[in-house]
């Protein structure tokens, strides 16, 4: 079940840059103003996790990919994390649009290791993702 919203080519290109180039740290995606396709809103090379969190709006939805890096004493690891950001404060129409269109983008992005549905800041906190990344 999906809404039929398309994914702009640039989403894939940018994602591949993140995956292979290792320069881009995170990408924020959004629905275009006419709600017909998913486009890249922002890319960033900032390694600060807080910068990333600040780029997710408090009252609207977004999708994001974050190149999550961690070191648990076994050397540095990377796990690409997909986040469907849908805060409780967002309007019901926006939530519906993003929830029903997520699959199109998610399926296009090959190589995502962790997926998170975030509705408040505690669910996308650095520790929460670290916990998921290091489980099992």
């Amino acid at each position, binding site marked *: *079940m999906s809404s*039929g*919203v398309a994914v702009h080519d640039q989403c894939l290109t940018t994602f591949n840059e993140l995956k292979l180039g290792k320069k881009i740290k995170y990408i924020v995606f959004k629905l275009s103003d006419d709600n017909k396709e998913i486009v890249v809103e922002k890319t960033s090379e900032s390694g600060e996790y807080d910068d990333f969190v600040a780029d997710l709006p408090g009252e609207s939805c977004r999708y994001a990919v974050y190149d999550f890096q961690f070191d648990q004493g076994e050397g540095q690891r990377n796990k690409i994390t997909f986040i469907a950001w849908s805060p409780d404060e967002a309007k019901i129409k926006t939530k*519906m649009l993003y*929830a*029903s269109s997520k699959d199109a983008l998610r399926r296009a992005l090959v190589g995502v290791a962790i997926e998170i*549905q975030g509705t408040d800041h505690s669910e996308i906190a650095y520790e929460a993702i670290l916990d998921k990344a290091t489980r099992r």
Partner: protein
Amino acid sequence: MVPPVQYGGDEVSAIVLDIGSHTTRAGYAGEDSPKTVFPTTFSTVPGSPPTYTHGNSLHLYRPNSIHSNLLSDGLVTDWPALSRTLDHAFRDRMRLPDLSEFPLLVTEASWNTKENREKMCEVAFEEWKTPAYYTVDKSVMSSFASGKGSALVIDVGEEMTSVVPIYDGFVLRKAIQKQPVGGNLLSSVLLSQLKNSTPPIPVTPHYLVKTKEAVPVGAPAKATLRDERKFNPEDPNCPTTLSYHRSQEMRVMHEFKESTCEVLSGGWDDATAASTPTRPFEFPDGYNALFGLERLTVPEILFNPQRFLPQEFTQLPLPASTSTIPSHPYSNLQPITRLFSNSLVQIDPDLHSTFFNNIVVTGGTSLTQGFVDRLQTELAGLSGGMKTKIHAASSPAERIHSSWLGGSILASLGTFHQLWIGKDEYDEVGASIVTRRGGK
């Protein structure tokens, strides 16, 4: 898959139809609330031909009228009644002679059958001449409308409670749990408890009351009744049928429930229950009193049916159903938390944390005061340390109409036109197209 139809988008609004066991909703896609909302129950006055009444006026007193519902187990069972319901919704209420200019989106229960789904598609194209049609799942709509592609949807409605896990927009059918516990059962128990209390509290529905006077709390009612309408089950010539009388008694109970019932949010405890304040309620005949324990024990049935459901109710037959997904019988009703854990057992343990964190609560009976807090407390006890988060829309309209609302937003998207099943496709393939395209 290149569909030939180009409906939806800005040019034409689609129509969204959502039939629940208590309420039917219809309206234009893209709007915030349905254009028309009316009871799913309808009235029949026997005769040749019989007179049918759909919509809000069904409660008016008509001699010999019988009340019945066109759904059983959440699925349409009375198709002629369905056609009349659509007639009422589209022609009487929305003033549309047919749907030849409007694509139609219909919601269906997660346990709907292939036959029912196809029959509905047939009705849409053949009787209503819709140019395009699509079916969506009610629970998926509720889940999406709360911004979640994956969620466990708990729907506590009029006729039943269901727990439906959704993963990435698809229903995990094997893990569906449902049982016939809802507002209707709570009202029935309440009615029997009031009638059997000492001294008995007579429940006189509105239709029997001609005039009433204000009386002090607890004093007998001083009302003149309409004796010509008096309900007498022994008299074969009595103008009032059992089903009408019952339906009107249940309306009073419905109101009683909404204005007094409450769930103890910390869990049941005899001492807390005894010290919880009483609440007043005035019956249609003017009798009024303060109610304590019964307003608390009845909604407890949702959480602990073994203890709180009176014996006589455990023998009721299950509503007829053609669905392959069984309901728990009245003799073995499950606490709502058990439905939840029964469902999780069927699901990959890796996904459990996702479902605990994304619980969507919907349905009119979930609006009982204290319900969501109590559910949160009980589920947190089940989660074994996993974070438990319940999403329940705070506005009653969003909670009750969540599946209509979800359908309304979805069908208003310009891109949704790719999904519609066109008339030409229906003509070529037949009604089975809806099963093939529905992704089920």
